């Protein structure tokens, strides 16, 4: 399963035996996973299996119960809130529901991190924000409020906002869920371009099979709180694990045990 | 202005609904528990502390001027019964009960439960506001009595232990007369009636989703607090002219 990575692809992120419970619900049991520099890694699995929980640990939005998380040779799971700021500047996150601030226009949303971290004045930050929005084809909506826009538009603006800090790693939490196919493929292309052109590492949480099999470099399948299968698109597609097969073929019955059913 | 007319409409249909009867069984008791029992600690703590503060301030002031503290107790009980107890209880209930009623009815409105009531031939006012109205009127009077008593006792103890006022002189009820008591009772009943009508009205006007409920809750707190203050002003002025001599 874990073939030794070539030296160039040294892991930038490592999860080592991470466990996490909410109340008496054990979500992650023993999750270990490496993320290589510059790759697009998909974390897949059924709803509620702990995919989002996994990536939220990486930027300290959640704390681990056991295990270690390493980023670029530094341990991050033990950091305190103020010490997390430099990590969060290097690892961006695009949330499932965008989390744009609804009291601000798109331009103001994108300008906020520019103003806070790059010391720009509001005027200059707004100009820069428009340029950033243009990169995701959203400049004509710069003066609209998030509530006035569709999910796909909000998601693109959220991506633009996350990219303002020029992160080395971007975490995407279900970027295409709830989007129509056209918008979903646009988001896919954006993610792919990031890795290709700018060498950004992407970790994508998803259960959108089309995205998974069109843009992933590697796929990690999470089942019962641990990584059940890890490999390239072809390797996962050819997996002889019946649970993996049930998931990627979207069958309602099979060996998979899903909580709540 | 439109809002005030609609508010009056809610009040009138509440009274009509009360006369008509036919409300869900046990609902009044449930509401009395929600409005009364659950506010007891809140009213006791707030009115108790403000009673101590008022006596403290009054004694300080009397000390500054005459040094004669024998009048503090008799004047205090007159003010407590005719105004402080009902009005402060009313203000506190406007916050606690007003917000609760608006949040509850507002949530039902935005989740279309109110429309469902209407569809099944039940008037929302009858079903939602009338039980709260009756419960609120009764419990406001009860809580006013409780709050007033706690205020009076807390004030008396402050006067005794901080300023050495004789307890017998402080707890002298000879100057209290029916005029003070009836004015206080009228106020308590009026606030008890106003709070559920104003906040129920705000709840029924909630639109949209969670923001709508939030808006209704805020509006209910402010609306019923202002209603208490305005009614207090009107009733106090009316009391001054109608009861006049008896209050002195």
């Amino acid at each position: 399963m874990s073939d030794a990575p070539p030296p160039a692809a040294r892991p930038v992120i490592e999860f080592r035996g991470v466990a996490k419970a909410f109340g008496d619900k054990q979500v992650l049991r023993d999750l270990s996973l490496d993320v290589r520099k510059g790759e697009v890694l998909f974390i897949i699995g059924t709803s509620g299996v702990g995919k989002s929980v996994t990536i939220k640990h990486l930027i300290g939005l959640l704390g681990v119960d056991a295990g270690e998380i390493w980023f670029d040779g530094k341990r991050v799971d033990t950091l305190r809130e103020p010490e997390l700021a430099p990590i969060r500047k290097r690892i961006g996150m695009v949330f499932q529901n965008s989390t744009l601030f609804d009291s601000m226009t798109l331009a103001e949303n994108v300008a906020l991190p520019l103003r806070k971290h790059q010391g720009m004045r509001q005027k200059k930050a707004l100009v820069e924000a428009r340029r950033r929005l243009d990169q995701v084809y959203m400049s004509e909506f710069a003066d609209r409020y998030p509530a006035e826009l569709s999910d796909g538009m909000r998601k693109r603006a959220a991506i633009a906002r996350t990219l303002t800090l020029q992160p080395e790693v971007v975490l995407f939490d279900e970027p295409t869920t709830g989007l129509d196919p056209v918008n979903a493929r646009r988001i896919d292309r954006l993610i792919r371009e990031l890795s290709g052109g700018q060498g950004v590492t992407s970790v994508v949480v998803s259960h959108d099979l089309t995205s998974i099999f069109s843009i992933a470099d590697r796929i990690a399948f999470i089942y019962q709180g641990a990584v059940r299968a890890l490999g390239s698109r072809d390797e996962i597609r050819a997996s002889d694990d019946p649970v993996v097969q049930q998931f990627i073929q979207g069958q309602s019955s099979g060996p998979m045990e899903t909580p709540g059913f | 202005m439109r809002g005030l007319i609609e508010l009056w409409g809610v009040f009138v249909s509440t009274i009509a609904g009360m006369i008509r009867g036919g409300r869900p069984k046990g609902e009044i008791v449930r509401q009395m528990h929600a409005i009364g029992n659950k506010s007891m600690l809140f009213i006791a703590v707030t009115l108790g502390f403000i009673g101590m503060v008022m006596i403290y301030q009054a004694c300080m002031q009397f000390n500054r001027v005459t040094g004669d503290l024998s009048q503090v107790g008799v004047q205090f009980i007159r003010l407590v019964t005719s105004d402080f107890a009902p009005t402060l209880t009313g203000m506190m209930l406007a916050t606690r009960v007003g917000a609760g009623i608006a949040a509850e009815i507002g949530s039902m409105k935005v989740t279309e439960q109110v429309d469902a009531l209407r569809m099944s031939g039940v008037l929302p006012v009858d079903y939602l506001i009338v039980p709260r109205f009756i419960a609120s009127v009764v419990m406001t009077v009860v809580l006013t009595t409780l709050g007033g008593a706690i205020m009076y006792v807390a004030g008396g103890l402050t006067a005794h232990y901080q300023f050495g006022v004789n307890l017998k002189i402080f707890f002298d009820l000879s100057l209290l007369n029916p005029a003070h008591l009836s004015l206080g009772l009228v106020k308590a009943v009026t606030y008890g009636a106003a709070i559920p009508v104003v906040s129920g009205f705000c709840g029924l006007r909630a639109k949209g989703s969670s923001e709508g409920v939030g808006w209704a809750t805020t509006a209910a707190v402010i609306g019923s607090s202002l209603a208490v203050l305005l009614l207090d002003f009107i009733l106090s002025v009316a009391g001054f002219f109608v009861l006049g001599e008896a209050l002195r």
Partner: protein
Amino acid sequence: MFGFVERAITQVGTTTVRIAREVGGIVVLAFDVLRALFPPTLDGRELVKNLYKMGNQSVPIVALTAFFAGGLMLVQSAPFVEKLQAHALAGWAAGYAVLREIGPILIALMFSGRVGANNTAELGTMTVTEQLDGLRALAIDPIRYLIVPRVVAMVVMLLALTVIGDLVALVGAAITAKAVVGIEFSTFIHSVVDNLKPYDFLHGIYKSMVFGASIALTSCYFGVTVRGGAVGVGRAVNAAVVAAAVSVMLLDFFMTYWLG
């Protein structure tokens, strides 16, 4: 009988634990806010935005409240004043009560109901839609960026409103004195100026600063700890206004003793 006693004890126990947890949470938040204020790295834009919004929301309501509060205190003292035929005392009695107690308390309660409740609802909505986590993910500290400007704005705004409100309340008392008891304005003004000291005014102002801080902290605390969607937001607003009312009354008690 036994069941009832047991239930009552359990009730008292859980209530105590809940209150202790909430007070603890608010105190921790207060320390976080203080730490963020030294050295002051206040987001100016957020501060101005909040000041503007809060002022807009509350000035008319506070003015109305203060006017009637002043009038009320005058009416309450009227029977006494009539009895003693001491018109010269009316302004003093009403003014003393308004400046030291009724003004700061009523204005604080109204402010809590309007601005505090709104603030809780706003922060609560942001919390349930993960906007606070969104800020954290952008390496922006929600306490510094969101909470501190709101707390500062609320303290400043309530202070300003109390100064304005005191004035309006005295006007309300003077008008009521003329209309209800027939006391001339000049008599009223003399009564106020001759008998009240600047400290009576300051006494209320000091209180309003403390009230402002406690309303701000409670409303922010209940906002950022919201659980459970839209219903949770409504419940948080309710809890916040109740907690703010209790804290205003308790602090008033301690401040009165302390300030004398």
